[in-house]
């Protein structure tokens, strides 16, 4: 994508390039995405295992996140199909379970485990990572540790992670990119004061359950928290100090067994997330 810094010519060239070669052309789409839709698939994320497209599902006014796990040429076809199938189903099962329990995650709209796709609800808003960084840069040099908006955000995040764990789900890749901040249903236009003041408002939704598992072990939960803590430390160092006090207090409020997990978190911090020292 053309950045603000690039010159006009460069931007033009890039735009032309994009028009000539739609971004989807370099990656084969599953057959189902080659048929007409009011919003044709638009690649929004690419991971090691799969791609996420934004498109519509069933009807023109239903937006969806369409996750596709393409066949891996380096794997034996039978093994490849089995792994893809298992992973699509595992992710869908976790999402459906969360939704049944009222944990804010994308709804499952449909899937084809043999082809390797999963159509999910499109979550509006932006990742916490982007919002938080915008907010922090608008307050450069300020002491943010006692800011109520930031505290509220940390508590909200902890609360949602606690809900996940309470229902036997471990996310496996908790980062601020996998936490969405979406406009709250209660938010009205009248409440808008200044742009940066409302940046951290909204409801948290957790996305990307590609590495999630249904686990109830203290260790897995502690590692989940540890990974999130490291993510805060590396992406938002100024907010890191609030993790212990506020995020974990949100966690405790929604998850009764939190104390055991927090005790284990201390141990995990001492040794890192790999207990076995292997792999």
């Amino acid at each position, binding site marked *: 994508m053309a950045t603000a810094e690039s010159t006009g010519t460069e931007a033009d060239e890039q735009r032309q390039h994009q028009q000539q070669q739609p971004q989807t052309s370099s990656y084969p789409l599953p057959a189902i995405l080659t*048929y007409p*839709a009011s919003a044709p698939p638009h690649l929004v994320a690419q991971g090691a295992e799969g791609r996420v497209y934004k498109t519509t599902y069933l009807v023109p006014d*239903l937006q969806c996140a369409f996750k596709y796990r393409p066949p891996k040429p380096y794997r034996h076809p039978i093994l490849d199909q089995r792994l893809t199938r298992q992973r699509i189903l595992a992710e*869908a099962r976790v999402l459906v379970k969360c939704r*049944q329990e009222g944990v804010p995650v994308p709804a499952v709209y*449909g*899937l084809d485990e043999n082809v390797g796709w999963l159509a999910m609800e499109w979550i509006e808003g932006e990742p916490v990572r982007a919002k938080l960084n915008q907010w922090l840069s608008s307050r450069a040099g300020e002491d943010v540790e006692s800011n109520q908006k930031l505290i509220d955000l940390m508590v909200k995040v902890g609360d949602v992670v606690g809900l996940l764990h309470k229902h036997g789900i471990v996310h496996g890749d908790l980062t601020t990119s996998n936490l969405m901040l979406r406009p709250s249903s209660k938010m009205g236009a009248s409440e808008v004061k200044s742009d940066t003041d409302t940046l951290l408002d909204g409801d948290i939704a957790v996305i990307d359950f590609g590495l999630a598992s249904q686990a109830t072990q203290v260790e897995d939960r502690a590692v989940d928290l540890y990974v999130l803590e490291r993510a805060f430390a590396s992406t938002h160092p100024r907010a890191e100090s609030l993790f212990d006090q506020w995020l974990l207090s949100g966690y405790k409020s929604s998850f009764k067994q939190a104390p055991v997990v927090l005790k284990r978190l201390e141990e995990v911090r001492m040794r890192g997330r790999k207990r076995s020292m292997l792999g």
Partner: protein
Amino acid sequence: MSQLETVTLEHLPPSHKIYLCLFKDVQNPDFLLTQLRSRNADFEYAFIDSTSLISRLHLLAAVFRAVNGLLGDNLRTPNVHSEIVLSMSASNNIAEAYQKFGITSGTKHVTIVKVVFPTDSVPVPPNADDVWAHLSENVEGTPLPLTDDNIAGDTDWAKMHKVYKMNGGPAARLDKMSLDDKVRRKEKETLALGGMALRGT
């Protein structure tokens, strides 16, 4: 006037046409059931008892899954219409899907889906007028467009909670919350879609 609607679903090829209609107060469910059981080829429709419909989208999700199975040559039942009935279900048992979502002699309101596409033996499939002519001649009832409002009063919630395993938690939680009825219906629709997607896995 024809009340048959031609639906275009996202991500399905234009060669496959989907026709929908709702008939209220159907007088001859036994006749329809007999045609279905005798596998009369002229009665290749998906007949869905409207008490088993949460919303229009609920049905469309099943239609999509069935047509997707047809395209991928991956049907678990003899044809796309029986596959629609199975696709409504959260379990792989075909007979059970027919009992819960198909018509019975006690059925009052029927939602009908017809999927047509060119085949080697029938290169030009019946068009909307042909389908409507056959339906209006054989279904004795009041035809209406399939809208959320037209089916809202018919949904058998006890049955829906049971088939989509919302009892013992989700249904009670949603029923307790002070939600707008439409929002509650939407969330239950969402849970149904999840149950359908994970059918038999």
